């Protein structure tokens, strides 16, 4: 896990404190009761704040797993 993924993981850990940290890199929305629409917006806001980026909420609708989120951030950070 590189530094960017570690920072994404930290945001996930902040938003989903009830999920064991080791499970977070494999987390996906379909299999997680905690990851509802409100928590999705909270996660996006936490990521936006952490990486100083504007998140496109329409595109972000597709970000349904840790891996997709990390890829999205990698593709947009610093733009």
């Amino acid at each position, binding site marked *: 896990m590189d530094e960017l993924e570690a920072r994404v993981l*930290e*945001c996930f850990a*902040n*938003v989903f*404190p009830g999920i064991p940290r080791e499970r977070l890199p494999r987390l996906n929305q379909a299999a997680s009761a905690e990851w509802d629409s*409100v928590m999705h*917006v*909270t996660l996006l*806001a*936490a990521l936006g*704040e*952490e990486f100083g980026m504007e998140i496109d*909420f329409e595109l972000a609708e597709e970000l349904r797993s840790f891996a997709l989120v990390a890829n999205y951030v990698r593709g947009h950070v610093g733009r």
Partner: protein
Amino acid sequence: MSLKLNEALKLAQTPGGGAPERQAFLACGFEPLHLPVFLRAHHAQRFPGRGLEVSTGVYGDLLGNLERARQSRASTCLVLIEWHDLDPRLGVRSTGPWSRLRQQEIAQQLAQRLERLRQALEHLSQQMPVVLAPPSVEFGLEADTTGWQASPFELELELLLLKFLASVAGNPRLKVLHTARLAARSPASARADAKMELVAGFPYSLEHASHVAEALLWLAYPDAPKKGLITDLDDTLWAGIVGELGAEGVKWSLGEKAQVHGLYQSVLRQLHEAGVLLGVASKNDKDVVAAALARSDLHLDRDVFFPVAASWGPKSDAVSAILRAWNIAADSVVVVDDSRMELEEIRRQHPGITCLEFRPKDVGATLELLGQLRDLFGKPSVGEEDRLRSASIRGLALFEEQKQASDLGDFLAGLGGEVSFDFAKNAEDARLLELINKTNQFNLNGLRVEAGEWQRFLAREDSFVLGVSYSDRYGPLGTIAVVAGSRANGVLRVEQWVLSCRAFSRRIEDHTLQVLFEGQKQVSIAFRRTERNQPFREFLARLGVAEEPGSAATSPVAISREQLGRVSADLPHRVLTRSDGVNHG
């Protein structure tokens, strides 16, 4: 201070730590989204070891949420109003044709909605204390004028809102957030997040949400107000050194370029009128000080200062003497002085005291200091009891002096004392709760009670409250003691018992215990040893109640009639009034 969301998410997870968790209901018409997190995070910062549970209602139903709050188990309700709660046409999530006709209709309907809201808030406040934040995000779609020009329509809506706020702010169980203070922390231009509002129904930027949460908590769970202020004189109460310039040479007026001192005097006068004790600690000759304080153009009467400690000894000694005369602890007191060195010396000798530097050359800093005094001493309302407190301090000093010179029994018998007992359960009487929450010495167990818990306690059928007032030839002391608890089957259980330190040494607690026993088979008290309740422990010792060594938990202690007999002989005062609102059987 504003928190970042990630920081708040971490803080919000901080475990409670054992103290009872507070329950708050957050009532708003929009999606509360990050607000519960920011509320829990700011709460964790201010009250480490104590958790906050935040319940919320449903989207788009502010009035319904007020009713949900009323039926919830919360002990405080935090209410946020935004313009679109008052009329959806004033928010960015609704669109429609705008016309002058429509504006009239909006204004008319707004007045009706505000009235319904006022009634719902009144109803809710009967159940629990309410904190209300007025709209903090502007509505900006009014199109008649340029953005620089306020239109009659906008001003009319604001006027309706202000009238509504002025009306609800008169309710003693409801506090309205000061919009100017919020604006100083959170500028209007940085408050809204329109994108988030359109996507998720949450109208605030993260930073503004943090500021709003922090402000709501300050109103809902304020720090206990300070009780006394000790002021320096030279270059603080007035400009100049009175020992060099003489009483006529010191100044405090605009014309003499000393206005900040005049402003300070005016604030001290207001504090005195609100019941704050004022004392003087000054390195000066007594006579010189007396002459200057006697000047008729001073903005406050010299008698408001008691004691006046003028000497050449260390300032901390003067502060010690004043604290003894007031019989209050250093952490309830603020010292204002222009000398940083003197303040440091005082702080070292009196840890816990609040020291503020008066900087007369810096007008901005002085105004900031005056604002700080408002925060430190402010309370929701000022009553007759507050005024009595400062008036009774001189009588207290005389009482102590004359008590030393006589036999205690004879002295008390000659006081002409009158004790009034009142069992009325009045939720509007803020004095009783105030006494419970600020009394440390004669305090049964040191447990504090929040306004919401108090309202619920009073509503219980088995609960009782006894307010005790006292007066003697030294003057009235007002309501100086409270006992509260429950009664069933001839057993009276006391959960709270406090007596103001101004009323010590008068055997008022002995009178009180006798009254508590009337009609009861047994009286039991929920005692807990605290660091500061030595006077209560002395009372237990007089009763012959053995204290369990090392016990830190609250434990019931039964008091027998035999023990009552040890303190109830030859009670010195006349019992004046007794409400008959309670069945002692």
